[in-house]
């Protein structure tokens, strides 16, 4: 048998006790939204609600990357050799590509797989009809693990360097 969502979630320490120091201090509303959604995600996972977990995880990938990348315009501009203006109207696909390109190596092992976008888009009647029955179940389990790893990577990135 596969692990339950609840048991997976219990092992995801960054979902249960998030430290959002990687979000710039001025983006307090962003932190509030992410905190709120993480609490809902944990509740949904504890209730074994696959579809709610897929929806909330997808939304959280967007919120976390949106907030993180907004705070990194200067860094990205330095890498590019030209100012970078973050476009807030873009999609998870774009956020993921920007993140992988500029941070995939700077934060080793943090690259996000393309499947997070496909998993996030699973909740649509036409797509669900075409996919195997257990797609949401598998997507929810993979997504919360990947999200937990992303939060861990970003928390490590934001932590002060030890002497």
């Amino acid at each position: 048998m596969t692990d339950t969502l609840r048991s997976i979630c219990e092992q995801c320490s960054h979902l249960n006790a998030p430290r959002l120091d990687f979000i710039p201090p001025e983006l307090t509303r962003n932190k509030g939204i992410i905190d709120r959604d993480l609490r809902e995600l944990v509740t949904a996972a504890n209730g074994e609600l696959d579809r709610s977990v897929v929806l909330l995880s997808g939304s959280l990938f967007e919120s976390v990357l949106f907030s993180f990348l907004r705070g990194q315009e200067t860094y990205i501009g330095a890498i590019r050799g030209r100012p970078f203006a973050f476009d807030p109207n873009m999609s998870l696909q774009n956020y993921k590509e920007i993140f992988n390109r500029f941070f995939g190596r700077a934060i080793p092992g943090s690259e996000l797989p393309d499947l997070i976008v496909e998993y996030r888009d699973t909740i649509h009647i036409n797509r669900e009809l075409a996919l195997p029955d257990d797609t949401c179940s598998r997507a929810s389990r993979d997504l919360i693990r990947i999200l937990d790893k992303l939060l861990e990577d970003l928390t490590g990135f934001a932590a002060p360097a030890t002497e």
Partner: protein
Amino acid sequence: MGNLASLDMRARGGEARLRALLEDLVQYYVGVYPQNPLALVVWFEKAPDRPDQNLLALFAGRLRDEITVTPRQSLSWKTGVEGPPYLEVHASSVEHFSQELTNRPAELSRYRDHAEVLYFDKKQLNDEITRFFNIITAPPGLIRCWYVDPDTYDRYVRGELTLRSQMVGRPNLGIVKTDESTDFMHAKAIPHLEFNQRWLPLSFAAVKNYAWYSDWQSHPDRPGYLLVEGESLYQILRFEVKSAPEYATRFQLLEKLPDDRYPEVYLRAVLPSERAAA
């Protein structure tokens, strides 16, 4: 807070700035024709030290039966400044360009001259174009796989579903075989996943995020299965990590893992007769 912007970044040259200007233009092109999404952008006859640059932009579907060359424009178009660097854009459709590749390949060779692919969407491209521009998105031996967890396999054994029904949607992983027994019954392979449209090997830290590994870790007594292209079925026996600096070159992996430690999945082929007996 750690911010890489505070680090002493090495000076960036003119090419990086030029590339950034081109990328801004590419971003604009991505949404310019909603019915004809951008499929490919190639920076050809690349010479960053010259004032004039050239881009080839291909859009999905059919636009016009020609390669349209736009009037020379300043790359500082966003700020309204008229000055170098300048750009000429050669625009066409995937369909028309493919036809031209068949009919007049010699005339298109300039697009490969000192060329760099700045953008591609492999869903919108065909094999002729990806080969022409040498766009490599997977190592040569990559096999796409769909994970069949133990519960799903039990349902298959009870006749409640077909394995073919599990092969829809994006593959759950890819594998590159590193060893195979002479009777093809046993194999070892490196798990891969797609990152920005390229199949890359997964580190040990990364495999832990996926059901095909974590199910085995939690319940090694209840194996899961990998259904591969062509509908062969493999049982997952175990995972091990191997230090193998030679793997990246030997198997032409698209990226080398920084520590050269590659997780490998050990597989056993499930013969059709065994599946029927089950």
